[in-house]
């Protein structure tokens, strides 16, 4: 089975494919939203982002990059090591937020509506064969 390097463009493409396959629009409640995860303290010292866009419940964009992330409804900032734990389903994103390890920017009320969807997304991401390095 092919394994993808974490936060590589190939990994992002596989994540998008799996999200589209496993989370059809009805499971995503036909939402339109966007989210930038901002990874600080990456192993190479850079700041990276993982950007998701969902339109009417369909994942239309999963993109990785460095530098300034695209504008998004929600920005979640945290250590690379922490995000990698979340991506392996070893840590719940909600726990990371509640303990202040992740920092959220965006409308909290809207974020609450999406909390269960984020868990579903993370479960799908965790199933993608990944080299976390």
């Amino acid at each position, binding site marked *: 089975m092919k394994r993808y390097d974490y936060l590589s463009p190939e990994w992002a493409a596989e994540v998008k494919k799996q999200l589209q396959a496993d989370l059809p629009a009805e499971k995503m409640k036909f939402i339109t939203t966007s989210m930038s995860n901002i990874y600080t303290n990456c192993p190479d010292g850079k700041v990276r982002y993982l950007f998701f866009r969902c339109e009417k419940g369909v994942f239309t964009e999963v993109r990785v990059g460095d530098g300034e992330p695209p504008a998004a409804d929600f920005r979640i900032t945290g250590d690379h090591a922490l995000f990698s734990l979340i991506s392996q389903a070893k840590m719940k994103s909600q726990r990371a937020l509640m*303990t202040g390890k992740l920092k959220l920017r965006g409308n909290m*009320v*809207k974020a609450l509506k999406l909390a269960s969807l984020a868990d579903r997304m993370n479960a799908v991401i965790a199933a993608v064969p990944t080299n976390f390095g």
Partner: protein
Amino acid sequence: MVIKKSTEKRDPYFIDFPGRVARVQKAMTAGKIDVYLGSRLRTASWITGAFCPWRTYVVIPKKGLPTVFTFVIDAARVADDSWLDEDHILGYAPMGGMDQVSLVADFIREELGVKKGRIGVENGLSNYLPEGVLTHFEYQQFEAALAGADLVDAYDIIDKLSLIKDEGTINRFREASRIVDIGHKAVRAALVNGGYKGKTETEIGGVAAHAMRKAGSEWEWSFTGGNEIASGYRTGLAGGACTPASRRRIRKGEPLMVDIHAMFKLGQGDHSHNYLIGKATKRQKWHAKNFIDIVILTLKTYRAGISPAGLAEEMMTFAEERGFAEYMVPGFEHGIGMTGDEWRIGMNDGPFPFWTNPDHLYRENELLICAMQYACPDEEIGFRYENPILIRKDGCEPLSRYPLGVEEIA
């Protein structure tokens, strides 16, 4: 400005909330305030038009709509009740970046772009617990999070602008008073013909609450225990003017004081009515007549141009002449405004910080609660009068119309 919800001007309860914000912003400009950071309940009520029971921060920029931050569990409801939309009523929560200080400070620095300058805050103190001035801890936290900006006292902007009531606000108070009168009718019906027997103070409070809720009251608003009911010796506690209902039963031969509260669109009803249960003694009737006479005289005396101290002197002289001055609490009013504005009258310009200035001169269309307490602890008897009154040029308009009297109930 984009307005999600606004009552129509034909609506008797119409309040021009965007106009209020514009007047605050004009005052901010005059006071060289870059951002107003309100935390008092009265400010939240006056700006949002919604009941904000959780700690709420009202951030008013120099231009544009305010953004309000309240506890996330209530933010969607506040947005639903307010004229502001859900993008201007945001929730805070104990999560990274979402705690109240980080969220508000980040908003001011990054969304409003205010990294230096003067941020108006609401410092101070109050005898009323839900006032909501900044705590010392909050002040320190905001000062650190907004380093580079100066936090300056600015509460007088809201206090000045909210002092004279507009027609919509006055009508909300009128409606709340009409509802309170319905509560009093229900209480009376429950007490007469021996109905008082076996009933407790808490039950009387509930009878009033049920009737007022049926009539549309949103809340028995007072933090002093909702509907304040006192019977027997509790009516005459020395200097007492706060009686949350107890489980004490109503008894023949005793006084009963019914001080009930209703809220209508953040306008507040507050009226007290008094009873003597069973056949009153001559002495009880003497106390009751003293009380009624001074209430009548007080209501006749209120008008624009008089002051709390002037009125108190005049009333206490009357009480002295009649021989009951020792039973009067020498204060005859407290302030009132939309929910949270419930104690001090006028501005903070008196001899004691954040207390009513005794020389405050009443102006037309000020609202206050005419509040009088008669208490004779030795004889275990007392009466209370409270009623929102609207100050007019040549008099006052009592908003509760419930007939004045100390009623003997058999």
